[in-house]
């Protein structure tokens, strides 16, 4: 389903973002560029404070008041930042978000059927009975056979995995082309996670859905995404084909993330990066944000902010990318 040669469905170009923190504008995203093609799954991986969720919010136009944005976000060739009114509503129907914890994003006193069909009834003037029938159809598509009964239930009557499938089904009702999946399985059990990821993959191949998959889990991104972008302190530090990024990382931070995870098939002392992840708010503007924790740091690393250097079919934000190429080792296969 990949058509990387055609124009990308989503194109984020040099996205920068300042947020009001205590009355002052502080930079949280810098020079974020990536694209998602039709039917492609792209991973956005990072630790807390890396800016991955803020990137999703910028794409979905859900930024907090006072936010200052630079660069551009284009969807199907159209500028997203200038959308308003009906155009914004129809954009949001085409770009659906699946959140980490469905219970936070759901009204606990409304029945499943009521919230699932709301958009169809209010924005698309679909009659209640028809909307209900479409909801049952979508529930069947995500592996919930007894949709009729589920529509009458309340959220608390469903397990986390079931509720997440309901959320996915309800986003599908508006026939989106891009799914922004923001840690959709982090709150779920391992076997449920596998099931939800399998479902998303199936929707991608059946419906040609594009997916931007936000996660802290490099292994998970590598397992399900064609390409992966790694974020650190508000910047993309590496973006490449997932398999390459996992097996032969170009950026020391990507390598560090891989080496920090314990393995399933053997025990070895973990290579722990010293210090803690820098949040975007703390990142220096005149040098590499990872320099303070990087085992390969050189004086040049802190003298100027590194740019994304094209390499191996992707790009890495490291001034030493040529020197380090092929030496950072990858995560051995489990």
């Amino acid at each position, binding site marked *: 389903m990949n058509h990387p040669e055609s124009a990308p469905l989503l194109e984020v170009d040099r996205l920068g973002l300042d947020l009001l923190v205590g009355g002052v504008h502080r930079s949280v995203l810098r020079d974020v560029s990536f694209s998602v093609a039709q039917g492609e799954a792209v991973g956005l991986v990072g*630790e*807390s404070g890396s800016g991955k969720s803020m990137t999703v919010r910028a794409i979905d136009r859900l930024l907090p008041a006072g936010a200052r944005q630079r660069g551009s976000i284009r969807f199907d060739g159209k500028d997203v930042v200038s959308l308003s009114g009906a155009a914004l509503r129809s954009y949001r129907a085409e770009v659906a978000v699946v959140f980490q914890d469905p219970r936070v994003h759901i009204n606990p006193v409304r029945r499943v059927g009521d919230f699932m069909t709301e958009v169809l009834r209010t924005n698309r003037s679909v009659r209640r009975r028809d909307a209900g029938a479409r909801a049952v159809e979508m529930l069947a598509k995500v*592996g919930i056979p007894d949709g009729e009964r589920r529509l009458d239930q309340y959220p608390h009557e469903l*397990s*986390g995995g079931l509720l997440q499938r309901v959320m996915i089904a309800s986003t599908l009702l508006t026939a989106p082309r891009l799914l922004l999946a923001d840690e959709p399985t982090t709150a779920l*059990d*391992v*076997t*449920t*996670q*596998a*099931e939800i*990821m*399998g*479902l998303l*993959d*199936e929707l991608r191949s059946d419906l040609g859905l594009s997916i931007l998959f936000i996660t*802290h*889990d*490099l*292994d*998970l991104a*590598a*397992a*399900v995404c064609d390409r992966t972008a790694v974020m650190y302190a508000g910047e993309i530090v590496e973006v490449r084909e*997932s*398999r390459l990024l*996992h*097996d032969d990382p170009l950026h020391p931070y990507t390598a*560090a*993330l891989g*080496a*920090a*995870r*314990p*393995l*399933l*098939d*053997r*025990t070895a*002392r*973990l*290579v*722990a*990066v*010293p210090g*803690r*992840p820098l949040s975007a708010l703390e990142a220096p503007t005149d040098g590499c944000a990872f320099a303070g924790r990087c085992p390969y740091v050189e004086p040049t690393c802190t003298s100027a902010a590194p740019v994304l250097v094209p390499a191996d079919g992707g790009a890495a934000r490291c001034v030493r990318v040529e020197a380090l190429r092929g030496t950072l080792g990858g995560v051995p*296969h*489990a």
Partner: protein
Amino acid sequence: MPDVSDPVLEVVGLRKTFGDVVAVEEVSFAVRRGGSLAIVGESGSGKTTVAKMVTGQERPTAGTIRACGRDRSAPARGGAERRLRGREVQIVFQDPYSSLDPRQPVDRAIDEVLRLHRPDWSAPQRAERVVELVGMVGLDDRQGSALPRALSGGQRQRVAIARALAAEPEVLILDESVAALDVSIQAQVLNLLIDLRERLGITYVLISHDLAVVRQLTETVVVMHRGTIVERGRTEDVLDAPQHDYTRRLRASVPTPGWDLAAVRRALHETRPVRPLTPSC
């Protein structure tokens, strides 16, 4: 686990019901002194209920729990008995943000435990031990006198570990203690836990859903599903060659590069888990 010599913790025929719901049924295991056991399972498996019974937060409906050779199946009688049990088993919880008092600086939080368990120690003796414990978990002096809000998640979890170690317990229960940490921080805390066990000879009981963390930290494992143990053995044997259907499913659900999602999904559909309704976990 049969034939565990010198068990420091021994649980036999543990059962817990909440009303009509059976949360834990026929759970037995033992951990050798200085050993490390994982209790693996998903939500509703009963693993947290087992941990709560061992720490005394829940009372077993049936079965016995012995730690350091002493029975703890029934609630402690009085403060002395509770303190004694506190020196046998301590617990570190998952969420380092809710397990510390936000108004209490780190050193006072640790000192509080020492005052309870070492009433005969003088203030300077305790202060010396606080500094030692803070250093042992890799925090500096400044962090040692900070309030929890000034610390990151990983640093708070180090404080929780230092606080648990202050009681000098024989057994440390790690209830998903590294699950909420960022990957790079998780590695630091895992390394710390491995070092502490080597250095102190302390026994770990790890409650976890993360098989890679289980492999890293434990020598034996019991796999729980719907309240009972479905598989047990040496950690590497169980993970490399899982015997029970459920363990296999759990193992196949761990994402790896080249994951065959369609196959994973088919396998899951063939044996879909039915979640028991337990009020805890």
